[in-house]
């Protein structure tokens, strides 16, 4: 008997969300997962009025702001942790419009749920928002008893629940972002998230996509790189893959070898066209 899947596709977090839930009828679980993602989108979006835009208005005006949205608080906590872990390489407030201002110019009081800006700046959750959304959707599916599911936010952010419906891990290949037949890496994941970030390829041509900024000096990243990170936590995977793109070589090495997660960084700058000789720095 063939294994069927329930499928849900919709637009959220600025991209195409796909939810594949395998096994028994999990209609209610699917709805819960979708609502979880939409809830994160509502909280973190900067493309329509949201708790995040309200916070940004205050930060840009140099005011402190109390935060009462639990999703936004959870995101800020996650950022604070991963900003420290990446030695500042992941910074959702780095933006050339605000000069050298960044996360270090913010004071976040977790207990009081208050945020203060020492310099005008604004937050853009971007990739980490997608990771958090998938994490919450996975949690909703698990809570509803789903044993096997695959979730995607635009095919660059993946999260899976349990094992592949046919057993074993979920097998993924990461093709060269410029196309062709070159595969950068193949890996299997179980109950994990996978994040792919790159400075080249079709995904970088999206309208309104902001330039990738190196927080340490505000420089626009022009080096051709691709980072792949597997982590139990989707938000963390997203933050780490972004950090790897902007990190200098020393920091990149430290990030690659820190922790047990699978992390890969590919230097694609030497290539005129995709080849198998991509310069690869990785920790397994």
């Amino acid at each position, binding site marked *: 008997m*063939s*294994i*069927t*899947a329930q*499928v849900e596709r919709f637009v959220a977090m*600025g*991209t*195409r969300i*796909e939810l*594949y839930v*395998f096994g028994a009828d999990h209609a209610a679980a699917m709805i819960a997962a979708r609502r979880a993602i939409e809830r994160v989108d509502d909280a973190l979006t900067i493309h329509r009025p949201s708790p995040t835009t309200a916070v940004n208005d205050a930060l840009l005006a140099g005011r402190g702001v109390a935060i009462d949205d639990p999703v936004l608080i959870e995101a800020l906590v996650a950022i604070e942790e991963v900003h420290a872990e990446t030695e500042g390489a992941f910074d959702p407030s780095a933006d050339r419009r605000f000069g050298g201002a960044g996360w270090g110019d913010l004071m976040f009081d977790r207990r009081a749920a208050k945020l203060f800006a020492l310099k005008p700046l604004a937050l853009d959750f971007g990739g980490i928002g997608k990771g958090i959304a998938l994490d919450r959707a996975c949690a909703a599916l698990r809570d509803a008893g789903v044993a096997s599911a*695959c979730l*995607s*936010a*635009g*095919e*660059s*952010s*993946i999260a899976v629940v349990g094992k*592949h*419906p*046919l*057993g*074993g891990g*979920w*097998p*993924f*290949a*990461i*093709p060269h*972002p410029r196309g062709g037949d070159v*595969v950068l890496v*193949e890996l299997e994941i179980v109950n994990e998230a*996978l994040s*792919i970030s*790159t400075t080249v*390829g*079709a*995904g970088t*041509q*999206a309208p309104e*996509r902001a330039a990738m900024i190196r927080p340490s000096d505000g420089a626009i990243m022009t080096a051709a790189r691709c980072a*792949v990170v597997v982590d139990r936590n989707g938000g963390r995977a997203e933050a780490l893959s972004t950090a790897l793109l902007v990190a200098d070589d020393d920091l990149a090495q430290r990030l690659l070898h820190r922790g047990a997660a699978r992390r890969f960084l590919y230097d694609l700058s030497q290539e005129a066209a995709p080849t198998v000789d991509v310069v690869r720095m990785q920790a397994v």
Partner: protein
Amino acid sequence: MNHQEFDLTRRSFIDRVLTATAGAGMATAAPWAVSAASAAVADPVKTNPVRLGVIGTGDRGRTLIQNIAKTHNCTVAAMCDSYAPNLAKARPWVGATTRVFSDHRAMLDAGGIDAVVIATPLDMHARHSLDAFDAGLHVWCEKAMARTIADCGAMVTRSRAANKVLQIGHQRMFHPTYLNALKRAKAGEIGALTQIRASWHRNNAWRRAVPADTTDRQINWRLYRDSSAGLMTELATHQLQVGNWFFDAPPTRVIGSGSICFWKDGREVYDHVALIYEYTGGRKFIYTSLLNNARYGCEEQIQGSTGTIEPELGRIYQEVPAKVLALQRMQKDVARGHKRTVPIGGATWFPELPVTTPGEALGWGEYDETMLQFEGFGAAVRAGKPLPGLLRQAYQATVASLLGEQAMDRGEAMTWPTNLVAI
């Protein structure tokens, strides 16, 4: 270019036309081009040429004279223009024996010509054509045919009554790239044609300097309603002909909006036009022309279910198959009990930007389509029979352009007239 080189170029051009018109259905779709090219091959030496009298030696008239000079079967025997400097500029392009007149009536009365070539302001086309037919002459007239639909019909009727050829200048109908494009569309290479999106965008005032001894209305006749429908008759008519040609029918209805939006300089014709021409089966020709932005230039995007042709760029494109979502494929794999690696990490956002695949060339090169249409005209005059199919195309193109003007002026949909002269 010496004569030998020119003959080689000419021969190569005619060969391309013959090749392009050799496809299935092309004898019906472009019979005039088949006839003209065949006649050009059969008549390789300039003997006993058809004697032409050119009425109007302004910029366009002089361009025509230069093309006539390239033909093997036509010669400019006389020319006339009411503005002496135009005649002086045309003089170097004609033979020493070419007679010159300041009035078209005098040229017609003087005799010694077989046909006239009319390159005068649009509102003069009908009068000059009718006068020529009355003088027993054949007529080659610049597009558009005439300022009114009624005048267009009168020209057709009078040419028949006089048993003389009436040919209108639509050089795209002799252009190897267009013929090739039509051939490939007829062969089904771009699937079912459902829409043509055409534009002619320029970024200039379309206004010429007025010499002291003339008037603005004489020089800038294209900007005034009594002498021109502006963008519709001077530019759109070419592209409407292409639309009718590829859709193999005239439109059934047109809606449109026109305005003097940018060049508020006293002109009377629109400097912005946007129209939708409807064809049977729900097909559409969507047209814009304007005079303050040239980015998209002149083009007809002929859109089918499996491809697109852009004849001005000379390219044909196939539709790019829709991307299959990686996880969608994974779902199907699982359903049939197959586990395989899922390639992932593509664009987070699938662009629906214009497809930028390079496509394939339709043929390009040094073309002399204006020369060929005169060779065709020469052959038609000699045979006393018009090139087949040509006049209907031209008539319907001009009617379509004038109907579009009416739709914009009235702000209402205009249906295709039922009282046109049958051709």
